[in-house]
């Protein structure tokens, strides 16, 4: 089974063959940042993997895109299960994006699903990508109501230490920022659910992180690590206000120092330092 996009199109689509294996593995490795060992486990060792569900896009004899769907049995109740497929990978080489390859890969895959009497296709997708897919190719894609929670606990402060060290590198190379920091001498204690307690000392020359000496803080912040990360990443001030009003974030300590801190935070935000650190 093979297909051409249009008479003028330079792309053709077909089911994966054993000769394509190395080329596709190389493409997947580069696009998904997965190790060879992981890909071998994911596909070659997978008892459910069926290459006839994998589709590749070809341009000038080279594979430039692929979709991998694994057949699975999807339970929808105690006694009922559907013949389904789980989408595991879908990639188009960056040089060939914007030519409708993704849409055609999904259309081709749909024909396979129809022939193989598959009733449902499902996947775990980031909501923004799902919106894009819905518009372009996957008609009828719907998100199920949330009913799963993720619990996370950090066992050490290494993630914060990395960010602080990155921040210090930026401060060292920014004279204006360094000058602003000399006026500061603030000790902030963080007690966050899901994270070990730590103290951040701002100024006079750089930012320090303490895990042992948590004494005499100027400001104390109590909250949830996952909530704070979510607020910072989404940069929505309303989320912050809502969390403060619902007492999900609690501040205590010297308010004047907090105001001073806000000025420096605002400066960091304007200088895009916050964006760099959060990346």
């Amino acid at each position, binding site marked *: 089974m093979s297909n051409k996009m249009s008479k003028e199109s330079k792309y053709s689509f077909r089911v994966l063959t054993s000769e394509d294996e190395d080329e596709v593995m190389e493409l997947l490795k580069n696009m998904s940042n997965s190790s060879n060992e992981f890909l071998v486990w994911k596909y070659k060792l997978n008892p459910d993997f069926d290459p006839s569900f994998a589709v590749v896009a070809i341009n000038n004899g080279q594979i430039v895109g692929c979709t991998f769907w694994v057949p699975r049995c999807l339970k929808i109740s105690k006694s009922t299960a559907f013949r389904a497929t789980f989408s595991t990978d879908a990639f188009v080489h960056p040089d060939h994006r914007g030519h409708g390859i993704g849409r055609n890969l999904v259309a081709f895959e749909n024909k396979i699903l129809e022939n193989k009497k598959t009733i449902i296709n499902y996947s*775990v997708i980031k909501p923004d990508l799902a919106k894009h897919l819905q518009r372009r190719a996957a008609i009828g894609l719907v998100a*199920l109501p949330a009913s799963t*929670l*993720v619990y996370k606990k950090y066992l050490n402060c290494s993630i914060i230490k990395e960010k602080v060290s990155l921040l210090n590198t930026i401060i060292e190379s920014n004279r204006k920022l360094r000058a602003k920091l000399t006026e500061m001498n603030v000790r902030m204690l963080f007690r966050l659910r899901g994270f070990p307690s730590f103290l951040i000392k701002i100024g006079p020359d750089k930012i320090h992180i303490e895990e042992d000496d948590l004494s005499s803080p100027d400001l104390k912040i109590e909250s949830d690590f*996952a909530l704070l990360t979510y607020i910072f990443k989404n940069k929505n001030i309303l989320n912050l206000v809502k969390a403060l009003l619902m007492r999900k974030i609690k501040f205590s300590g010297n308010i004047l120092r907090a105001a001073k801190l806000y000025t420096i935070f605002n400066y960091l935000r304007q200088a895009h330092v916050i964006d760099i650190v959060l990346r």
Partner: protein
Amino acid sequence: MGIPQSSEYYLRTYRHGDEADLTSLFDKVFKYFIGFVPRTPAYWKWCIQSRPNLEKEGIAIVANGDNIVGYTAIEKSGNILELCYDPSCEGKTIVTMLLSWCVEYVNRHGGNSIILNAPAQDDITRQVCRELEFSEQPFANVFGALFLRVVNFPQFLGKIVNQKKNEKKGFNETILIKLREVPFWCDDHVILRIRKGRIAVLKGKKVRPTITIDTDISTISLCIYGSPRRLYGEILKRRLRIRPFWKTPRAVKIFSWIQIRNPWYIPIADLPIPLE
């Protein structure tokens, strides 16, 4: 923090041959959930044992005598692939033993964090996680949401309706569902005929329906997976039109009857994605 001891239960590592008991425990515990792959020893061996980053010592079992009452599988980096306990036993003790063991295991291997996903309605896991100072967030914030796409709507509806055929509801209706935005390979008209306790899903248009439903495939799918409240919302937004209008309560009743209310849950073991 050490691993709590129990006079009734003890912790041990995996032994060859345990997989049959582990898979049957998993299937028994999660049978009411949508989304997970029913476990077979071959599938379990692939998704747990042969997974890169998982050591043989990364599987801990809580047993009561010879009976396995709980287990967990964790990668060195701290991703808990599966955590399962028998709800008929002392769930809180078992989960506390397993999670405390996970914290110790990850600490020993120099990992930075532990991550576990569990059904939102699992109050025991939630309570233990709170006591052990885990933070909590929706699945969508970390991995993304679970998306479904119905490829063949008549077959999908047929199977759901078939599953409910023993529930006598006393409906006598012929419902014509007109679907908009349907993929080219799918029928855009589906008939649901309910007569004297018999239910049939038919293709085509040649019927005289008692109720006609005009909608698109996303809306109808959402109404089938979602809550009854969503159904009313879609009717008010006119994304789901019912004719004649006075039959709306009857149509809503039929929809509520066919709705899938089971929550979904996918353990990390079923997600073939590279984790940190």
